[in-house]
């Protein structure tokens, strides 16, 4: 279980040991989605991809 911080509101985010890259975890305080990244056992998180909109203009 890795303990990380929300990239928006700094609240603690718990990521389970067996989490795998690409999994989405939500911050429990502000709802921000993060994408889990596991590299040689090291767990980190990045902001999750946003809905892609191609509105033009």
């Amino acid at each position: 279980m890795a303990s990380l911080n929300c990239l928006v509101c700094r609240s603690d985010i718990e990521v389970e040991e067996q989490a795998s890259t690409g999994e989405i975890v939500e911050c429990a305080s502000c709802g921000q989605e993060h994408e889990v990244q596991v590299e040689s056992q090291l767990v980190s998180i990045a902001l999750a991809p946003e809905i892609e909109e191609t509105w033009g203009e």
Partner: protein
Amino acid sequence: MTASEGGKRRAAILGGSGFTGAELYRLLDRHPEFEVAFVSSESKAGFPVDKYFIGSIHKKKPSSLKFSKAEELDGHYDAIFSCLPTGQLPKIVQRVAQHTNYIFNVSGDYRLSDTELLQKHYPETLQHDYDGSFHYFIPEFCEIDRSAKIVNLPGCMAVATIYTLYPLAAEGLIEPRVITDAKTGSSGGGKSTTEHHAERSQNFRAHKLHGHRHRPEIEHALALHSKQSVDLQFSVFSLDLPRGIMATSYSYLKDGVTAADVKKAFYSAYAGKPFLHYFSSGSSTPMIKTVVGTNIAEIGAYVEGRSCVSIATIDNLLKGAAGQALQAANLYFGYPEEAGLQFNGEGAWP
């Protein structure tokens, strides 16, 4: 409360031939726990209900129920849904109240309590005696009060605006001066309108810039549930669309309040509410097209510096009226909040 034979609760709709009445009929007709036993219309009395509603053309077994005049209301109903024009229910409320456990009212009649404001915006409410009690009810924020016979739902533009401001006001995050620029489709005015299709079509124009009666309702509702009061400039515009509302609120964050505080306020207020979809992450913003035909409110808040833009979109006839009323009834009768309100069409695009 008595359930009818077959175990379903008996429901009546007053003003059932109008836009919101038709939607309520459609929703109740598919609801697992209700059965519609009475639908009023003055002009269509005697005509079969399922032959009138466009919404019933795809029904395989049309019902034999016919419209009745409101004065023919008789017997007992578990719930009466009133979709009369504002000002009509107060005239008959004493009698109607005797026939039911609850009146779920989508009109404006019992949304305010201040006598002066009532006199200005809803004079009929004052002019007619009603010795029961009533309750202003937004499903997501208000306590269920089973002692009140009239459960009055919020106004459609009012509630969209409240969704944009509630977390900000409840947490006391913003300066009092707030501006809401609301845009609405044409069904918001009901089936009787003098505005021609050819005039509304291909246009965008102001509907009411000052003095809209949803303004005191919003200010009142926020005051009830908030740490702070707001001083609202509320203006409404007309879209060339049949359905849908967007309310866009502009506020300034108090000194020291951050974008993360705003996110936390919205998330904690709305996470877990089945029909409130707060866009917690990033770039998505509420649209009208994706809420039309659903009971969902899309909500987002976007901060830059101290400036906060918060937006909510709803379908005025569903989350703004008929769907909201059914959601309330579900809660009052102890049914799942989403019963009869999930539409598999959600998500069709484009």
